[in-house]
């Protein structure tokens, strides 16, 4: 049975390595600052005991005043999961580091998130639109795109 | 009346080739249908017999498209170059031999021209068609076509060698290059006398006419329709008919070279063109069987098969036949026994070795 790790526990383990990088945590989620996401991801993957070797899903949500980028992580060795989130305030010039180097599985998913929400993932080797064509007007999954 | 004879035979050959090609197309679709648990085309005419006619009418009414950036003249010429040699092959195929046959007797072999270099003629003529494919592949200005043309060259150049070497075995055993003499020499069908040669020729010829499992030229899952991707209407039909005409040609040649042509096995019944036609159908059925069973090989595997499997075996076969020819064994039943056993042994040993060399473990 998969156990969902609580954000608080993981936040404690993160606090030594990444002081002031965790915005918020609760029983289910862990919010980290956008600029730290790649390092945190690497830490989560490589730390024994956490071993989050599998990025199940990566997506974004538009909350009007901010965007959340949501990472659903899993560990195939320990069979536990964690929800990692990043809050990007504002609606323009959204960018955060790419986690492709940590999990290759983020490749197409980050491109999709860029396509649908206009969030730039810096460091992604091929940051192009995935499903719509080049020159498509706007980013369709934003709440203001009708 | 030499001229009359020529005209009659040209008409016979055209009628034979075209009607058989039509029949083959229908047969292929029906028989493969049976292999695949479905009826196949059965709506047009009795048992779907008019299906090829309907297809022909449909395809002739289609627009003839030439790619805008292609080489227009080469594009137009290519189907003709690819199709014509298929018919030329039949010029030397003997339908019935001299002397009494089933029902009637002939005073000379029933062939358009009983060439003294008949076997060589067939090999030479059938190597022309690849030029048509290359022309089509080049002139279409399409990458799939170009890839197909390159595959055609690789395939032709490699399979020609074992093919010809396996024919040389026949020529040694029969002592002639004329197809009629080869048939006459087969008191024991050469398939028994040279089983290895038959295997090599059949596989090589299957590859030469691009039939499964060597149908890399028309590997629709890889390169769409390869050299005839850009063809439509009449010109596509010529490629299509050409393919089946070659299948017919290979069936006929295999029948002549290895199955005793118009002779009934072991002379139990008088000779007749009927046996010849029956053998053609038999060989064609064998091709269909292979096609509906086996997946396609990859291009490098196909090349390796030609050079590492067929070529050594064809040399072995040649050596074997030549040794029997000069020794006291001769080409009788003793040779049949030896050759069948050796053929099985060689194929098994070499097949195992072939796969070990390629690093493929089975299990």
């Amino acid at each position, binding site marked *: 049975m998969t156990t969902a790790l609580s954000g608080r526990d993981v936040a404690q383990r993160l606090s030594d390595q990444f002081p002031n990088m965790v915005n918020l945590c609760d029983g289910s989620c862990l919010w980290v600052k956008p600029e730290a996401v790649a390092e945190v991801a690497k830490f989560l993957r490589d730390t024994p005991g956490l071993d989050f070797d599998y990025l199940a899903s990566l*997506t974004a949500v538009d909350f009007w005043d901010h965007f959340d980028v949501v990472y659903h992580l899993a560990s195939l060795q320990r069979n536990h999961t964690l929800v990692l989130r990043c809050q990007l305030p504002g609606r323009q010039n959204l960018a955060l580091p790419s986690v492709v180097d940590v999990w290759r599985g983020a490749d197409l998913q980050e491109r999709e998130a860029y396509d649908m929400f206009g969030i730039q993932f810096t460091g992604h080797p091929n940051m192009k639109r995935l499903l719509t064509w080049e020159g498509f007007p706007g980013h369709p999954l934003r709440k203001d795109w009708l | 009346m030499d001229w009359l004879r020529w005209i009659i035979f040209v008409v016979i050959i055209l009628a034979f080739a075209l009607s058989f090609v039509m029949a083959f197309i229908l047969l292929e679709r029906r028989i493969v249908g049976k292999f695949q648990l479905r009826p196949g085309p059965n709506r047009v005419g009795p048992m779907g017999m008019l299906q090829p006619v309907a297809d022909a009418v449909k395809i002739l009414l289609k627009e003839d498209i030439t790619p805008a950036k292609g080489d227009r003249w080469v594009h137009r010429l290519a189907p003709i170059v690819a199709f014509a040699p298929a018919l030329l092959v039949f010029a030397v195929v003997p339908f019935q031999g001299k002397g009494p046959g089933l029902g009637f007797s002939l005073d000379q072999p029933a062939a358009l021209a009983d060439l003294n270099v008949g076997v060589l003629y067939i090999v030479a003529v059938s190597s022309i068609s690849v030029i048509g494919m290359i022309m089509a592949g080049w002139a279409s200005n399409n990458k799939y076509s170009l890839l197909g043309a390159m595959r055609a060259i690789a395939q032709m150049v490699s399979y020609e060698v074992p093919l010809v070497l396996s024919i040389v075995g026949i020529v040694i055993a029969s002592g002639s290059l004329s197809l009629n003499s080869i048939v006459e020499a087969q008191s024991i069908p050469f398939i028994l006398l040279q089983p290895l040669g038959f295997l090599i020729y059949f596989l090589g010829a299957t590859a030469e006419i691009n039939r499964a499992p060597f149908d890399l030229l028309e590997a629709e899952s890889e390169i769409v329709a390869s050299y005839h991707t850009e063809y439509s209407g009449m010109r596509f039909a010529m490629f299509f008919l050409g393919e089946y005409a070659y299948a017919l040609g290979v069936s006929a040649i295999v029948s002549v070279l290895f199955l005793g042509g118009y002779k009934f096995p072991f002379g139990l019944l008088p000779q007749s063109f009927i046996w010849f036609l029956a053998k053609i159908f038999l060989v064609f059925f064998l091709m269909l069987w292979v096609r509906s069973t086996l997946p396609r090989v*990859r291009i490098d595997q196909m090349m390796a098969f030609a050079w590492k499997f067929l070529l050594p075996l064809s040399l072995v076969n040649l050596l074997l036949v030549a040794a029997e020819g000069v020794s006291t064994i001769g080409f009788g039943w003793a040779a049949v026994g030896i050759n069948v056993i050796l053929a099985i042994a060689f194929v098994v040993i070499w097949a195992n070795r072939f796969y070990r060399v390629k690093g493929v473990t089975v299990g």
Partner: protein
Amino acid sequence: MALRTEPIVVNMGPQHPATHGVFRMRVTLDGEVITDLEPVMGYLHRGVEKLAEARTYTQFIPLTDRMDYLSSMSNNLAYVLAVEKLAGVEAPPRAQYLRVIMAEMMRISNHLMAVGTFLDDMGAFHTPLLYMFREREKLLDLFEMVCGQRLTYNYMRIGGLSHDIPPEFLPALKKFVRDMPGFVDEYDQLIRENEIVLARTRGVGVLPRALAINASASGPVLRGSGVKWDLRKTDPYLVYDKLEFDVPTGAVGDIYDRYRVRIEEMRQSVRILEQAIERLPPGEVRSDVPHLVHPPRGEVYGHIEAPKGELGFYLVSDTGIAPYRCHIRPPSLINLTALRDMVLGMKIADAIITLGSIDIVLGEVDR
């Protein structure tokens, strides 16, 4: 003297006989050898996630059918399970067993199609495909019996199923379950020891274990690479923890392993079906859930082991009647991540069968 050749860029697709739909592979070739490959998709993009935001939770069920249209039931199931998790409702036991039955039938049907078209890509000229269609046809008849549809079922509901199975369904399913192992053996005989199949698939399109995990592969692709990871075992949903079955895995991660995993999974699915039929309890098939579900504020990520891999639904609720955000984790799309690594340096024919062995459906890749 080194031989130099001109590289060719070939756009395989969007209209190509072997890309399983409107999918494009931009392949750079040196002769026949692949030096680069880029998958291009989106030709079938319909904005399903956006549509979800304008529909009630129940109204979205038919749209899930149209994602992976070869395993619609599994899509239904993944979605309704996610919504049920979000709304905190549960389906009655009979519905749970029936859902398992539907999901496993769907898995068999999908794998038949996947293996069949994969062999077709290999140039087997439709014979294996049509053999497999024979059994898929029987499955589609069964589905038709249940919900009147053969492709897009729309059978699952939030809190259960749309209606109970008809009386003639179970005998027909029992007969199918009895016959199916024999047919699986038949496919196996057709192909398993074939020299050409072995030569084409052994050591080709290898996805190493580490890369498979890192590239978020799932389903038969992940298991073919030797990772024993099946959500039915590791994160059981419905009643899978009460049923006995094995998780087949490959050793090398090549095409042959993926193919073997699919064949074995069919056998295991038959096993599950046998047990599920035996234990199918009587009772209701739908718990009392209103048509307009108002889940509490929150979010949920529900995932199931769909035939093609981990199918996840990430739903965000703002207490409205429609999801605020609905993200779908499509296994077909994410399994394509490693396609380039799998085919680099291989022949063009290998790229085709590697794609075939990943088993994608473009309705799901593009959504």
